[in-house]
């Protein structure tokens, strides 16, 4: 379309678009760009931002100069005396736990969400079933954390007020301290995350499934494909773009995850995650330099997923 054919009223000079963008740009600069730059600059300084981070180096210990806070953020949790101690300490560190969260929670929410979406599609009470699954999304994370803290409660009395332990003891078992026994506890926390987010994944995946053309499915069935084959060979490939978007969104969500861990264990008992560690450094230890360094590491870890998500989104827009 040449500019000559555009009616005059729709023509815009070089300035007009910027004027429209100005409010958004100003707000973004003030609330996103400036804090970001400030965070990076603070992460290169000492605990209260008064001098360079290089001054916090301890003689005789490894030192990364001005990046000293990053050395702390990246290596302090690991015991590097031997490979086996490194391996053990890695899986108890905030990085190891965040990795566990990503693997377990993303596969849990997307897998269950997809299963519910497919199954709910085939029953008459679909709306009700989906509403129930979606409902935890309406509970705040802190609220969910408190609810589940009660579910996992480990009582020292004969009467267990925690739902799970009361079931276990009524069946004759020994109560389990779900939140303080290492390995079990991170799993117990992931269950809470899955409980909250499955509804979100289900809703999006269900919408994608509805968009799968009936003709394709019917053609496959007429050709004698089993439901299993229809699911894996027809449905999943068609909704694959949506699945990828859901997966990347969930990975970003999990990387940012803070509330559940903070409310339920406070990062104790080997359940720390990166976002909670950032909070601990910032507001419990008051080490602004280290807190912001952990924050920057977290942002760097998230950026590839955001980039991927946006690229995916743009590609989809183009297809429309």
């Amino acid at each position, binding site marked *: 379309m040449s500019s000559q054919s555009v009616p005059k009223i729709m023509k815009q000079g070089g300035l007009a678009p910027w004027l429209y963008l100005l409010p958004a740009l100003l707000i973004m600069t003030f609330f996103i760009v400036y804090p970001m730059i400030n965070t990076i600059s603070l992460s290169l300084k000492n*605990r209260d931002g008064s001098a360079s981070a290089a001054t916090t180096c301890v003689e005789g210990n490894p030192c990364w100069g001005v990046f000293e806070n990053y050395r702390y953020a990246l290596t302090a949790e690991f015991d590097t005396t031997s490979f086996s101690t490194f391996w053990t300490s890695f899986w108890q560190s905030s990085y190891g736990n965040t990795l566990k969260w990503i693997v377990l929670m993303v596969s849990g929410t997307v897998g269950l969400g997809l299963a519910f979406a497919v199954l709910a599609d085939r029953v008459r009470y679909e709306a009700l079933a989906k509403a129930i699954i979606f409902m935890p999304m309406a509970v705040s994370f802190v609220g969910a954390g408190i609810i589940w803290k009660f579910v996992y409660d*480990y009582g*020292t009395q004969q009467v267990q007020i925690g739902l799970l332990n009361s079931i276990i003891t009524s069946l004759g078992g020994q109560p389990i*301290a779900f939140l*303080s026994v290492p390995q079990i506890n991170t799993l117990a926390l992931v269950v809470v995350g899955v409980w909250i987010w499955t509804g979100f994944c289900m809703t999006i995946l269900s919408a994608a499934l509805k968009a799968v053309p009936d003709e394709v499915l019917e053609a496959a069935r007429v050709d004698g494909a089993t439901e299993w084959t229809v699911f894996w060979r027809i449905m999943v490939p068609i909704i694959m773009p949506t699945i990828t978007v859901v997966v990347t969104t969930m990975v970003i969500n999990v990387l940012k995850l803070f509330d559940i861990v903070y409310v339920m264990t*406070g990062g104790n*008992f080997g359940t720390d995650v990166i976002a909670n560690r950032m909070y601990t450094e910032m*507001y419990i*230890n*008051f080490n602004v330099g280290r807190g912001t360094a952990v924050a920057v590491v977290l942002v760097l870890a998230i950026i590839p997923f955001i980039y991927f998500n946006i690229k995916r989104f743009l590609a989809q827009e183009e297809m429309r």
Partner: protein
Amino acid sequence: MKKMFWQIFALLTIASLFLVACGGSTPATQSPATEAPAETESQTEEAPVSDDMCMGTQPGDELSLLYQWSGQEEERLNQILQPLVDTCGIVLRPESTRDQALLDTRVQAGTPPDIAFWNITQLTQYQEQLVAMDELGANADAYIPGAIDPGVINGRWLGLPVKSDIKTIIWYSPLNFEALGYSVPTTWDELDALVEQMVADGNVPWSMGMESGDATGWTGSDFLQDIMLVQQGPEYVMGIIDGSIPYDDAGVVQAYETYGKWATDPLYTVGGAQGTLSTPFLDAIYKPFSDPAEAMMVKQSGFAGGEVQKQFPDLVFGTDYDFFVVPGAQGLQGGSDWMMAFSDKPAVQALVSYLSSPEGGANWAAAGFDLSPNKGAAGNYTDPSLIKKAEAFYATQGFTPDIGDTIPGGFGSAEWTAIVDFVNGSDLASALAQAAAVQAEALK
């Protein structure tokens, strides 16, 4: 027309966003006259405050306060400050929050409250911003010896200890002790023997639960410091605080081993290790006083008495619940809430000189707001448990602040982590080594 409305609306929204963003430093401009009368009802029992204590305050001068107290505690503070309000006409602008991030943000943004009542670590954290107490007319002689020492940071006296509590005490039920034939131990060996006797009788001696969200472990750190006061004495504890004794020293290891023997065994404490880790500290306070009692004793600070009273309103101090000082302790562990000033305006000076005066101490004691290290408080307590606490408090040879609260730089949470990991079965040496590394770094 409608479109026009939305355009204006959008513009106003954006404009207001900027106003909010930039308006943080605007002081409260509300006329004081509209709010003052609500609080002027005078209390009777207080000592009078003389006019010259007002330090030239004009009636209507505002004083902003930030503290963690609410409910009954806040009422008591108001009662203590009432004479100042009445005499000088100061208008208090109090804010109550438990969120330290709020205080941090205010200070960093350059809009701190005039006065904050907070913890000892904040004196170090904000030393650049705080106004020294002697510049504000505080009277150091009004305090019991040693009480203000922790508040002197790099040679400047930065805070008033206002509300103190002792931690080196054990709560028990005299009723249960009598029924089972136990007597209050007077030496550590007697306590040890009593514990073994209880175990032999099939009674659980301790309730050691310490779950407290992201602060889980502090109950254990109090217990450990008391054991160190018994086994090593107050100078040893002060040595850890100033860094001359590393946190993985043999004496610390010995204290952890004593503690661990009790804290991880279901015969000695309710629920064993997992009970210690996952029982909320408040629930742990209730256990010796429930019916039937789940444990015989709980080692917890002075505030536990108030919690027992709240949970079991029918119980009476002295007969149903009581405490004894940890037997054999060669000193006391205690903590204070500290008052710090971010401004030197007349109203702040008036408050500082009032609270550091004998009248201020007397009024603090009369209000029953825990202990006051102000000498004027002695003899003015009315609550029986406060009278008993005050006795131990004024008689002590060595008053030691909480190790974890006093060492800056994240040692507190490193200490909690060490305790939690140790109780949860980790290797003691490596748990202590990590805490010692943080201690060394913080005090270098």
